[in-house]
């Protein structure tokens, strides 16, 4: 299944609608990597609001995507993790340590633009 990737300024947004397979996630990762390069995106938002389960496999893949994005110079923000899913994840012993998280798409975008403002203020 193809995950649609939207572009909003220098942010790419990938909304995951249903459980993705191995291949789907790898395709997503590569797709994001190439777009980050093409559009010089600074941020990537992975929206997990539609997922009802996030297991160790999916979590690993998301870390993979965030890592790849960072190699290309973009920050990843994972958004939309639901209460029950967050709870199950910590029970399982999973965390997205090192990856920024936000409540939803709106917050994710705010997080990224906040970073941009700080970065601009510093330079």
């Amino acid at each position, binding site marked *: 299944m193809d995950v649609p990737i939207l572009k909003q300024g220098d942010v790419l947004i990938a909304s995951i609608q249903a459980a993705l397979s191995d291949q789907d996630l790898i395709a997503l990762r590569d797709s994001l990597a190439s777009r980050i390069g093409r559009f010089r995106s600074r941020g990537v938002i992975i929206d997990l609001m539609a997922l009802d389960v996030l297991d160790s496999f999916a979590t690993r893949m998301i870390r993979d995507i965030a890592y790849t994005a960072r190699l290309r110079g973009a920050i990843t923000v994972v958004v939309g993790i639901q209460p029950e899913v967050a709870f199950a994840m910590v029970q399982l012993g999973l965390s997205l340590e090192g990856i920024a998280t*936000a409540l939803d798409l709106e917050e994710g975008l705010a997080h990224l633009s906040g970073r941009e403002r700080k970065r601009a203020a510093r330079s």
Partner: protein
Amino acid sequence: MVDLNEQTPAQLLMRDMGLTERDIARRRHIVGLEERDLTRIASLNELMASHVDEYTTAFFDYLTGLDEGRLALQNTAIAHRARQLKRGHLLAMVQTDYDVDYVAQRLELAMLYSRAGLELRVFLAAFHRLLKVIGDGIMSRFEANPSEGFETFMSLKKVAFFDIGVIVDAIVFERERVIRQQQDAIRELSTPVLQIRERLLLLPIVGVIDTHRARMITESLLRSIRASRAKVVVMDITGVATIDSRVANHLIQTVTAARLMGASVIVTGLSAEVAQSLVALGIDLTKLNTIGDLQGGLEEAERLLGQRLVTVEERGRSSASVEA
């Protein structure tokens, strides 16, 4: 034909109780219902048809003759419906078709009794009275052949006990469901999450934290984070009875889960001594953002939220003041 999208309450209860065809067949087996029982019972059709109102009345007269019974059935609508259902039951009792629909009928009446608060001992006593009256009817019908009459009555009693089994199980199930709901409500009350300003939640944890309570607290917090779109949570553990490594791990899990939802957690009330002993036990506290006291925690929270620092004097005047 059952429309799966529109199940009656009795059907839903049946599903919740696991009363499947297999379970019902098992119940028939448990009371020992056999072919020859069915043959005998079938011979009671005429007797039942001509006496059903008399038997129904006998049951309800006994019931309402007792204070507890009268109280339970004082609502005339319920009493009327119960009578209707009971009458139908008695007729169905001798139809020898003890399947899913038969059980659903009985559950409907059981739910009615449950709602009316009819006590089981009262129900059983009235049921016994009913059996006596029916028994008398059977024996007088079989006057010429009393042993056959007795056997027929015993066969019918198997069905009676099948019925009692279903009704009692249903009433108990409903009672337990209510208790579970009440327990959930109590748990909700004991883990309050307070919104003290926009995007900021305060979670004061008091008392003993076991695995179950930790879970309730985490679930409650996560839902609140979503509902109030909180970005910062101040979790105050001053009032936690004992903080051992188990409790510490629960707290760390809560913090991690909140983080997954984009909220950062400031832990206040962790004394230096407790922190030291936890570190000695190998607990990694670096994951936690700890501040000594609640006041400091709230100031840090406001800093994180980008709000200006509020001094102590001003805090006294603000509407969202919190006891330190």
